[in-house]
């Protein structure tokens, strides 16, 4: 099988996580922000799988499955919120929600 230094895998996870974070920071569209959050969760799961593969244990993959569950729950609620936001305010701009009161 392959021999890959564990740093390279962690590097990939770090770069993907940073790109997701940059996406959350520079975008103002709710759908893009949700996509960036997905990228970040995926990168975190990648880190778990790399660590589990490094130690030869199945725990990393189990953590990835839990992250997957959490991501799907988060994205369903987040997209429902995006639909509701669009129906009420006719925009996906997150700045428009800052005027929301109680």
């Amino acid at each position: 099988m392959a021999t890959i230094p564990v740093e390279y895998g962690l590097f990939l996870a770090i770069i993907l996580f940073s790109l997701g974070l940059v996406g959350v920071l520079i975008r103002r569209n709710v759908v893009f922000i949700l996509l960036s959050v997905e990228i970040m969760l995926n990168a975190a799961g990648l880190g778990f799988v790399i660590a589990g593969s490094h130690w030869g244990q199945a725990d990393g993959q189990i953590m990835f499955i839990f992250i997957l569950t959490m991501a799907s729950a988060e994205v369903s609620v987040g997209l429902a919120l995006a639909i509701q936001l669009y129906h009420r305010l006719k925009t996906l701009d997150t700045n428009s929600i800052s005027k929301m009161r109680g």
Partner: protein
Amino acid sequence: MDIVFYIASAVAIICTVMVITRLNVVHALLYMIVALLSVALVFYTLGAPFVAALEVIIYAGAIMVLFVFVIMILNLGPQTSQQERLWLDGRIWVGPTILALILIAEVAYVLSTHSTPAYTITEISPRQVSTQMFGPYILGVELSSFLLLSAVVGAFHLGRRRQLYPEEIAVSAAAVEQNTSPQGDIQPEPQIQSDIHR
């Protein structure tokens, strides 16, 4: 096998960069699917075939289809990508990006200075994962079933169109007015009345 890992990593990074810089949501979704597929390939080369299959089935299959459905429901027009172009144009985030790149370079330096020897990857079979998951981690499985149930209920509650109260209609109409007026060219009339048909 090594070269597969490196190529898949490069494809994943390039696609992720494309995802966060696209103006059109559908283009971003297509790049996102390719990024997820390449991450699945990375999982496979790391000796995790079960997780690679889950990545393709659940992430690239189910979650991205959810995004596509929502975009179809929202029915975004070309003025949305115009708006995105306006938002992305700012020079504000150039400075922070350069500083963050310096930090990433530092992390790279720290990680590369003390290197662990390359290890031979052993494949972890789905059987091992399952016996672990339904053995010591059974509590986590139960908790994630709670989480999924509450997510289903929450998504149903948030996503349905309920009848708006009169003061909510007023607030919403004012917000729509405010959101659409600076653009000037397009004035979609606030279709709030259609929300009270049930």
